[in-house]
């Protein structure tokens, strides 16, 4: 049993409207990999931000080597020995490796003159320690993603971090880069560094984890040491048992396939393929969930289908008509619609009203001669607002006055007004509360029952079961499982979501 260097007790973090963490205890062991697991939104990132000084806890105490501590800022935490490697790389691509590592804490002479020689030497030392011969003067933008990850780690180590937090460090790495990272982790362990490791890849966790902490809905679900942990145990603790929403069975029989994808490939970053020779088809009246981890290729699949990825290769046919080469506009007209994941960035136009947003994709429907006919527009807008139960003061209300769930319904409503036949929804339940989720899912079922083909992505296992009739799992740009919802066990889905290409289904 190794020594506990850091412990947090009774951590609670309140954000306006929600409790991100409730009474969570967390212990960090020196010279070990401390794994933190939980679904998206379980509170992992919030807990890590508190440890790294980015956020301050609302309640709770933290002790480090027996002394009570508090971190006012990320600089404060770093100076006390806690380093963090964020999930998204936080490097400046226009600066060199050395400049990135010493950003904000340059080694100076007399406080003004940057001692470049000393910094370069120190960088070379760090790279040596990580067994990487990355040129300290290379531009970070020129490095591979894996190398950039090493630079991030070096940045954390430059301040002699005794606790190193890694938030999904392997999500962007290739298999060989992962091996290098694990070697580095092994060395850091031997040097007595405590590592806090967050990942969704259960195989990975089982392989390198020493102590496991599972969070669920902002609460501590379980803790255990390596010898007592199995993958089924993790899944059970992570998901709990309660249902998200009551499921409604389909009212109609699914028809013959309407959307067929054949040998679809899309180049990704580096040598990897974002989509790897993927073939699948979807049927009207059926709801299909696509489950997968971040970077599995779900969004890329949708964007390729919708014509947003001009370098995608392969065939996409809607009702037998080949769509390759068609613009977004033409695909929309033939009945294919994408509801994007990030509604603030991709879904809504903030300066338009609720009605302006709803009508944006189907202006032709209520254009008479050259102008928008209010007489034709208003009843259509009223109808969709009613149909989707959008809570708004009216079609003229500013879009910003709506809650997240209602904004999401506006984005869906906009798509429906184009009278689509296939609706692709990218993470439709993201960032909306449980009640709104249930309504969105219920809307999806209504639409499927009207004969639409509905496909949605999710990173939340429970949400695959909540509405879907059929569940696909994607990993590394491939489809690794294709199951009827009633046959799909959580364990099978989780395992499929981490399958490496060598073992994936063709």
């Amino acid at each position, binding site marked *: 049993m190794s020594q506990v260097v850091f412990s947090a007790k009774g951590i609670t973090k309140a954000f306006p409207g929600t409790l991100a963490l409730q009474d969570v205890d967390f212990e960090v062991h020196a010279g070990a990999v401390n794994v933190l697991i939980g679904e998206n939104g379980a509170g992992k990132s919030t807990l890590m931000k508190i440890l790294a000084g980015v956020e301050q806890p609302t309640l709770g105490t933290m002790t480090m080597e027996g002394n009570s501590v508090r971190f006012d800022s990320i600089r404060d935490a770093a100076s006390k020995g806690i380093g963090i490697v964020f999930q998204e790389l936080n490097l400046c691509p226009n600066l060199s490796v050395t400049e990135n590592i010493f950003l904000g804490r340059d080694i100076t002479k007399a406080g003004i003159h940057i001692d470049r020689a000393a910094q370069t030497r120190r960088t070379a030392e760090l790279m040596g320690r990580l067994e990487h011969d990355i040129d300290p003067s290379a531009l970070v933008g020129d490095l591979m993603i894996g190398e950039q990850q090493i630079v991030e780690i070096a940045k954390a180590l430059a301040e002699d971090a005794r606790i190193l937090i890694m938030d999904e460090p392997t999500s962007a790495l290739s298999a060989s880069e992962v091996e290098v990272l694990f070697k580095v982790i092994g060395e850091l362990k031997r040097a007595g560094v405590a590592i806090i490791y967050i990942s969704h890849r259960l195989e990975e966790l089982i392989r390198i984890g020493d102590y496991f902490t599972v969070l669920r809905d902002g609460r501590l679900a379980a803790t255990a040491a390596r010898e007592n942990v199995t993958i089924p145990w993790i899944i059970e603790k992570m998901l709990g048992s309660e249902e998200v929403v009551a499921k409604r069975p389909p009212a109609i029989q699914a028809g013959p396939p309407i959307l067929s994808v054949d040998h679809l490939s899309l180049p990704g970053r580096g040598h990897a393929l974002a989509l790897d020779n993927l073939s699948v088809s979807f049927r009207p009246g059926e709801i299909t969930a696509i489950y997968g981890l971040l970077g599995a290729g779900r969004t890329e699949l949708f964007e390729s289908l919708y014509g947003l990825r001009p370098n995608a290769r392969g065939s996409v046919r809607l009702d037998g008509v080949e769509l390759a080469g068609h613009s977004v*506009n033409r695909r*929309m007209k033939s009945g294919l619609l994408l509801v*994007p994941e990030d509604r603030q960035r991709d879904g809504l*136009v903030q300066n338009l009203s609720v009605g302006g947003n709803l009508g*944006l994709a189907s202006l032709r429907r209520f*254009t008479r001669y050259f102008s928008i006919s209010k007489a034709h527009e208003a009843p259509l807008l009223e109808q969709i607002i009613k149909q989707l139960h959008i809570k708004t003061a009216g079609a003229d209300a500013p879009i910003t006055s709506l809650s997240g769930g209602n904004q999401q319904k506006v984005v869906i409503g906009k798509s429906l007004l*184009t009278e689509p036949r296939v609706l692709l929804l990218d993470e439709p339940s993201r960032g909306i509360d449980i009640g709104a989720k249930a309504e969105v899912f219920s809307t999806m079922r209504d639409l499927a029952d009207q004969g639409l083909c509905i496909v949605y992505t999710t990173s939340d296992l429970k949400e695959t079961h909540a509405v879907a009739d059929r569940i696909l799992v994607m990993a590394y740009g491939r489809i690794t499982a294709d199951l009827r919802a009633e046959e799909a066990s959580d364990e099978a889905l989780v395992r499929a979501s981490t399958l490496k290409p060598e073992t994936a289904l063709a």
Partner: protein
Amino acid sequence: MSTASSSPAPRANSNASALLLLLKLRTFIALIVVTLFFALMAPNFVSVANAIIISKHVAINAILAIGMTYVILTGGIDLSVGSIVGLTGMVAGGLLAHGLQLPMLGIIVYPNVLEVVAIALLVGTAIGAINGLLVTKLGVAPFIATLGTLYVARGAALLLSGGSTFSNLVGKEELGNQGYPIIGSGNVLGIPVSIIILIVLALVAAYVAQRTPFGRKVYAVGGNERAAALSGVRVDRIKIAVYMISGFCAAVVGLIVSSQLVASHPASGETFELNAIAAAVLGGTSLSGGRGLIGGTIIGAFVIGVLSDGLVMMGVSEFWQMVIKGLVIIAAVVLDQLQRRLAANTRQ
């Protein structure tokens, strides 16, 4: 939701909304204040004749500002309009004075005035199209792309005449190209033609912006380009179109200016682009795109026009005029920020 949550303080809320209304109408109020001020201070300011003179001055800037507003609504900017004014004026003047020379055929063709007008409008619109293509297909930042065409068009205007002026553009009876001065100096029912052009363009532009699918797409592109594209809006086409509109408006101004002077000078229209941007901003158009009204822009142009003509009539020096104009623009933007902050507060 907003009214329910803020009901405990109805008094403060109604004050805030009254202030908000005042801020929203600030350009209009400014126009009234400025007009009243000069009516009291400058002798002869209030007269039909003076109103027509001011309106004729304003028309030039306002027409440019209409095109500019469309461009700014998409989040772009068009610096080339002043040069397009110069170039299209020179094209028209050259065609009237020297005809279209076809050395290969050894003949000179003299187009009539309508044809001259059509060619000049085509040239302006084509330069706008080039701006649009540079911005969309080649991904050049609007500021840089139109800065480039600012120089190119001005250089082309100078090259057309070797730097000299085409003068006395009244045409010749035997060439059948008389009548050009009507655009700048003619009257219909006592109203100058240039003002009629402004009224027609402003009405069409306001209608197109508010009531047509094209207009709504312009606002959507300026508000959130990605969301617009995902909704099937062909963003590139919209952007090219707004630069073409701006180029067209600049060509109209080029014709009016050269017609008024009965001469075209290659330096004509210099710094006009800045006045047009000022009118749009003064009228409440947001430079980040997506927010603004044609009506606001027209009022903005009138504020600038009344201000400069009034100051001239009061005998204020040209240098002080510039200082005052600058301060007014800054004040307009400050008030705009205030309005937005207040609007955000009352919404909560």
